[in-house]
């Protein structure tokens, strides 16, 4: 779709309702489709993209609807004032619920929101203020320039115009610095945090954003229906929205619209002929929907959208932009990282025992040792993923120990992962741009309103530069997870370089690389060394390590066995014994 699709889309919103011969029945259906789609766009952002499952989205619709209903009936305020009120109430509620549940594992959020949805439903249904089960009726219609939007046609234009704006805003958000943070939550949160992304804040933001979209839908619903009651805000309604997202395709905004269309239309048809088939009235469509949901989960868990519309890879245009400011690099040979008597105990087991070593600017140090020697644990301690039992890790003399991953990134420490952690749904260059997260400032609102373009251009110019540096410029627009694993490791290095690091920590960078790729990687690391970067790498490939490093630290049984140049280490009988074992 072209960038300019919203214009014809908006024109269609204005014109379609006036098509001669459009049955009123379709008009009504389209109104409900639009409202559902607005809400489900939020479900896509939250669940499909952010990886969080909420069964309270209909409750947020309720917050929006009731807020505006109460203000416009009890207090006689203009329905237009209901919109900011609806958004505010919903956002605050989401903020509170999110604060309680978002830090927990995924299914707690789902179950917690399920309980919240039940409790809110009974609350709406039992408070006199909200008219109990009967709800609130006599809600005034919206007026625009003196024109009352009682007519379904005008309202249709309003709803679909809002939907178009919501889609534009959501696409803008997802294609921004904050959007990349949200997109990294599913499957890449640890990596994102290591590059300074505030992942709890990103979670919270996605949750509030989805609640706000639900509130907008609720506001539209209240003034379309002109009455509200608790039923459309219950758990079953939330489940239906989840169904729309899963069926349409929770990974793309388009899936939200597709799902809303399909579920609403199917629902309408089923309500028509199922009771005739079964000879009595009742909520039979839930059987069909449940079966559809199961079938989709089993056969096409990504939903229908990707099957109907093959996503063309979008070519990102990299405009020349002013280079980002760089860090002042330390003098070559000056101390950067100091590991001091670091220990880690798990229960009675000592995984790392009083390890000490240093890495200086412009130096490559290798951390090696047989399987189970404690290398990975040491690496996790240095990168702040795990806390040491005792000892310290210092960067330029100040302690890194106990600092969150974000703070460590802020100070110029960049890393790669043993098990590659790239965000699955994102292109190579977008993944690399996450590395530059801390070198931008734009927030969510700037992203939605596209006020962040200048900064984005600079971030992407930097990402492109680092990608070219590691020799993957050609792959920039491919999906990151489509690359060979070795190349994905190299993408991780480009991402690390985007941080403008003083210290680079690499976990098995050569694993899975072909011979010539290893040679290129070694050359790149030598260039970085020449620029004054301090490099610490854990590696299995001995040829690679022996030829590249200035110094090696050998670990065995959690302790430092030896330290020295590659040649010295290779001849050390203790090292040979550690690797080959002692004869019994």
């Amino acid at each position: 779709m072209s960038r300019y699709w919203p214009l014809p889309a908006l024109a269609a919103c204005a014109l379609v309702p006036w098509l001669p011969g459009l049955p009123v029945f379709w008009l009504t259906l389209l109104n409900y489709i639009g409202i559902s789609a607005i809400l489900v766009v939020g479900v896509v952002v939250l669940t499909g993209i952010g990886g969080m499952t909420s069964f309270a989205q209909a409750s947020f619709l309720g917050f929006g609807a009731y807020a505006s209903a109460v203000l416009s009936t009890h207090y006689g305020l203009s329905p237009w004032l209901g919109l900011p009120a609806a958004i505010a109430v919903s956002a605050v509620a989401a903020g509170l619920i999110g604060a309680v549940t978002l830090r927990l594992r995924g299914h707690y959020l789902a179950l917690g929101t399920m309980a919240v949805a039940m409790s809110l439903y009974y609350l709406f249904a039992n408070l006199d203020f909200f008219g109990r089960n009967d709800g609130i009726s006599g809600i005034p219609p919206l007026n625009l320039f003196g024109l009352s939007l009682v007519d379904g046609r005008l309202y249709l234009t309003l709803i679909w115009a809002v939907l178009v704006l919501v889609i534009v805003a959501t696409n803008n958000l997802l294609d921004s610095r904050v959007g990349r943070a949200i997109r990294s939550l599913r499957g890449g949160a640890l990596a994102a945090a290591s590059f300074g992304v505030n992942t709890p804040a990103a979670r919270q933001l996605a949750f509030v954003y989805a609640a706000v979209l639900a509130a907008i839908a609720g506001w539209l619903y209240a003034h379309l229906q002109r009455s509200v009651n608790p039923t459309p805000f219950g758990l079953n309604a939330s489940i239906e929205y989840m169904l729309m997202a899963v069926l349409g395709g929770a990974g793309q905004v388009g899936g939200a619209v597709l799902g809303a269309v399909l579920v609403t239309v199917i629902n309408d048809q089923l309500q028509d002929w199922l009771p005739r088939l079964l000879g009595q009235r009742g909520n039979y469509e839930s059987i069909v929907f449940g079966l559809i949901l199961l079938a989709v989960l089993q056969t096409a868990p990504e939903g229908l959208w990707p099957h109907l519309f093959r996503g063309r890879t979008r070519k990102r245009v990299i405009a020349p932009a002013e280079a980002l400011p760089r860090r002042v690099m330390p003098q070559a040979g000056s101390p950067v990282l100091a590991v001091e008597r670091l220990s880690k105990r798990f229960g009675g087991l000592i995984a790392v025992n009083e390890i000490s070593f240093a890495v200086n600017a412009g130096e490559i140090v290798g951390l090696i040792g047989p399987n189970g020697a404690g290398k990975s644990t040491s690496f996790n301690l240095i990168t702040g993923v795990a806390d040491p039992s005792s000892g310290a890790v210092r960067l330029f003399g100040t302690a890194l120990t106990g600092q969150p991953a974000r703070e460590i990134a802020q100070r110029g420490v960049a890393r790669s992962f043993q098990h590659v952690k790239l965000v699955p749904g994102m292109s190579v260059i977008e993944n690399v741009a996450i590395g530059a997260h801390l070198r931008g400032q734009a927030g969510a609102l700037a992203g939605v309103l596209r006020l962040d373009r200048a900064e984005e251009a600079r971030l992407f110019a930097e990402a492109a530069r680092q990608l070219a540096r590691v020799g993957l410029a050609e792959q920039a627009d491919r999906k990151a997870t489509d690359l060979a694993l070795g190349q994905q490791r190299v993408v991780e290095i480009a991402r690390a370089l985007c941080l403008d690091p003083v210290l680079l920590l690499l976990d098995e960078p050569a694993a899975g690389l072909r011979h010539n790729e290893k040679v290129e990687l070694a050359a790149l690391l030598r260039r970085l060394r020449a620029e004054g970067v301090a490099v610490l790498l854990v590696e299995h490939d001995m040829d690679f390590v022996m030829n590249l490093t200035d110094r090696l630290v050998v670990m065995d049984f959690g302790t430092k066995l030896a330290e020295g140049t590659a040649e010295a280490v290779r001849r050390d009988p203790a090292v040979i014994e550690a690797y080959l074992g002692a004869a019994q």
Partner: protein
Amino acid sequence: MNVLEVERLSVAYGAIPAVEEVSLAVPEGGLVTVIGPNGAGKSTLLNAIMGVLPSRGAIRFDGAALGAAGIEARVERGMALVPEKRELFATMTVADNLLLGGFRFRRQAGGELERVYALFPRLKERRAQQAGTLSGGERQMLAMGRALMAKPRLLMLDEPSLGLAPLIVRDIFRIIADLRATGVAILLVEQNARAALQVADRGYVLETGRVTLEGDAGALAGDSRIVEMYLGAG
């Protein structure tokens, strides 16, 4: 007669090959070791033979092709794997862990239990203790004991000495030698190459997913190329 024959076995993680065209054989009652540096694909090889990972190529047990047989079917035929991470039932007692080892053979479980306790008297002392509270060496013994409860004809050991203190490593290798004397065939994956080659009849050297050397264990133990492979060509 070979109890296990593996022919041109390949395993890949997605598009990334981890084991490529590996062929090996374990004779009845024999002790064969696969050695090689970190990350060579040794564990992957054992997991594929046990059916934990999907693979291409042929695996024959007792002359019959295993095809797509599941893990349970392989256990029933007499294969057992002691995995690198032991995978014990940490919150259950030592005795329960052992009993479950004989899950597929519950009728003969009593006799086997006594045999395992005789082999590992330490486990009998600790039988009422939770598996998660055992020391590293005891855990390895329990993992081996649990596998033996199924009366396997082929026992596959994945890095049994991993993370154990040298004294305990010596115990473990003594036990491996004892086990072999009971007639069970053993396929031993080890990083402790020297000790492994000392107990084994035959050895295969695995490097970046391929067999680069194979032969009589004694001959391999003296091969100078092995040091180079583990510590790089310099």
